[in-house]
């Protein structure tokens, strides 16, 4: 019983981590039609900023708060300078963002010397319930993920920002002809997606430690999650990430991890093949 509870918690918490990482990726993919290969590096930057704060002796939570803003601002700038030119050609966008990611990743690698560096949790230790130990930080991540998810949903569904974003990405010239400032919307959406990645990086760095390939590690999983969930809505990728995350944490409980690893991807592809619109067909938020 206790065992099952711990198992459930652990699986859920990894699911939450994947959801957190995929949130930004999903927003950019669904809303902008850009499969951002540099998204992993935004996660990395968020982690790096948190590490910097820690290394400079500042409180870690300060770094965590700063990370989404800094990464978001960077996202805004990059959108205006680079990403903007790619909307017409999604495949070129993949390659362009790939190159961008390469640059960021290798630069960070240079900065941290290619090492694996630990960053302590602001809320460390474990919560003990009887004989069970539950990581306090993983618990915090679950809570924050839920909050962020709810916040994003409200932002996109309840405010006219969401409407503007969807209109712009659907038909930019018509959006302009409806008085929407498309450059601003593009920039804001991309920045928002980047900021979410930055936040994800900040939150997961205590769990996984900082290393240059931190973001890359989750990228393909993220893409698969977006596909499984369904492009075109906010909910889709989130659902997909939940499924992929929990599946890849749960399968090793029942089979050889090496098999589980490949199986997740095979299952995902087969699923998409027979349900190309994804878990949640793309409409609305």
């Amino acid at each position, binding site marked *: 019983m206790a065992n099952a509870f711990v198992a459930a918690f652990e699986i859920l918490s990894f699911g939450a981590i994947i959801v957190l990482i995929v949130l930004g990726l999903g927003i950019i993919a669904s809303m902008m039609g850009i*499969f951002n290969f540099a998204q992993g590096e935004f996660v990395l930057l968020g982690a790096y900023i948190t590490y910097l704060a820690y290394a400079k002796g500042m409180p870690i939570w300060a770094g965590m708060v700063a990370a989404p803003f800094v990464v978001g601002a960077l996202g805004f700038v990059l959108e205006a300078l*680079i990403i*903007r*030119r790619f*909307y*017409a*050609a*999604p*495949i*070129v966008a*993949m*390659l*362009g963002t*790939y*190159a*961008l990611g*390469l*640059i960021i990743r*290798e*630069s960070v690698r*240079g900065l941290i010397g290619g090492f694996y560096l630990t960053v302590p949790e602001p809320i460390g230790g474990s919560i003990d319930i009887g004989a069970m130990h539950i990581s306090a930080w993983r618990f915090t991540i679950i809570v924050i993920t839920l909050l962020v998810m709810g916040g994003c949903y409200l932002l996109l569904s309840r405010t006219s920002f969401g409407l503007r974003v969807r209109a712009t990405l*659907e*038909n*930019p*010239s018509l959006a302009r002809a409806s008085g929407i400032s498309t450059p601003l919307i593009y920039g804001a959406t991309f920045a928002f997606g980047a900021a979410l990645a930055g936040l994800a990086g900040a939150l997961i760095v205590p769990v996984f430690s900082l290393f240059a390939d931190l973001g890359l590690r989750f990228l*393909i999983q993220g*893409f*698969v999650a977006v*596909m499984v969930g369904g*492009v075109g809505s906010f909910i889709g990728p989130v659902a997909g990430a939940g499924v992929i995350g929990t599946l890849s944490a749960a399968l090793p409980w029942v089979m050889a991890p*090496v098999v589980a*690893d*490949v199986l997740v*991807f*095979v299952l*995902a*592809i087969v699923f*998409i*093949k027979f349900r*190309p*619109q994804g878990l949640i067909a793309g409409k609305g938020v």
Partner: protein
Amino acid sequence: MLKSMGAAKQAVQVEVGDEMDVPVIDHAPAERGTARKILPIVEGVVLVAALLAPLVLQDYLTVFATRVIILALFALSFDLVWGYAGIMSFGQALFFGSAGYGVALLARDLDITNIVLVLPAGTLIGLTFALLLGGFLLLGRHPSSVIFVSLGTLTGSYAADRLARGWYYLGGQNGIPSIAPMSLGTYEFTEGPAFYYLVLGILVVVYLLCRFLVRSQFGLALAGLRENEQRIAFFGYKAQHLKAIIFTIGGAVAGLAGSLYAFHEGFVWPNMVGVVVSTQVVLYVLFGGSGTLIGAVIGTVIVEGVSFWLSDNYRDVWPIILGLLLLLVILFRPLGLISFVLGERERVGSFGAKPKEKRNAAP
């Protein structure tokens, strides 16, 4: 994925004139007249350069050039699939690498290294894998979207990479080292000018075949596919079959390249089926210019050459510089370096001009 023709059209429309600074398709008449002749010139120059290379290059550079040519062959396979049919195969390495592994196993376990056997075997392996994966991804009730195919192939190659790493028989992470050289009777193809001219010959033959194919009416059907698959289906084309065919041909060429590569380098390793090499080939082609066969070759030569040079001269930061260069090209030359000399019309290809000339020649 696109639900209605309306949506399909809409998607296309975005491509044409959405941002004001996106250049709208040029069709100045002057360009049509002159540009047509540039492509053969470029091809000729490249061929002559390739023929002369071993004469002027030092030995180790000839070996390097051999590798580049094999990779160019690989790039060709991707260009055929993406540049001409619009199928984004982000997992092209799967066919390249599986053929490499296949021939490595032939050499290791069965002592088969005869060129007459191994190259067809490698080609066949690439073809088979492409047929299977392509059949799965491209055929079926729902027309598959570009994004689905790209991520599907990417995932396929990612999974294969992990499988190769995990499977002991294939040497796991360490791959299969020390593959015996390819042979013909008692002659052994070791790295050097002989190997170079062998692969150059193969490249030229495959190039010409591809060129013939993409300029045929079949090529026009592919161009139509790339534009709007559904529309093509309504004309009565078996769109999915066409896609599967070209995808399989691409896989076969990749397989041929992969088997040459395995013998030339003397080892195979998991990255060869994985995402790293898959992305690499996409970069070659985009860098050079997709949709022109020669662009794929030029792209490979330049990307490989530049990395070779950079890793010599900027040892610590060369990946960053390479990334910057890629980004700059993608940003300012989204159609690849070849677009410096080639007009849009010639790149997309036009099928109308030919017969007119022919008719004039033979009244």
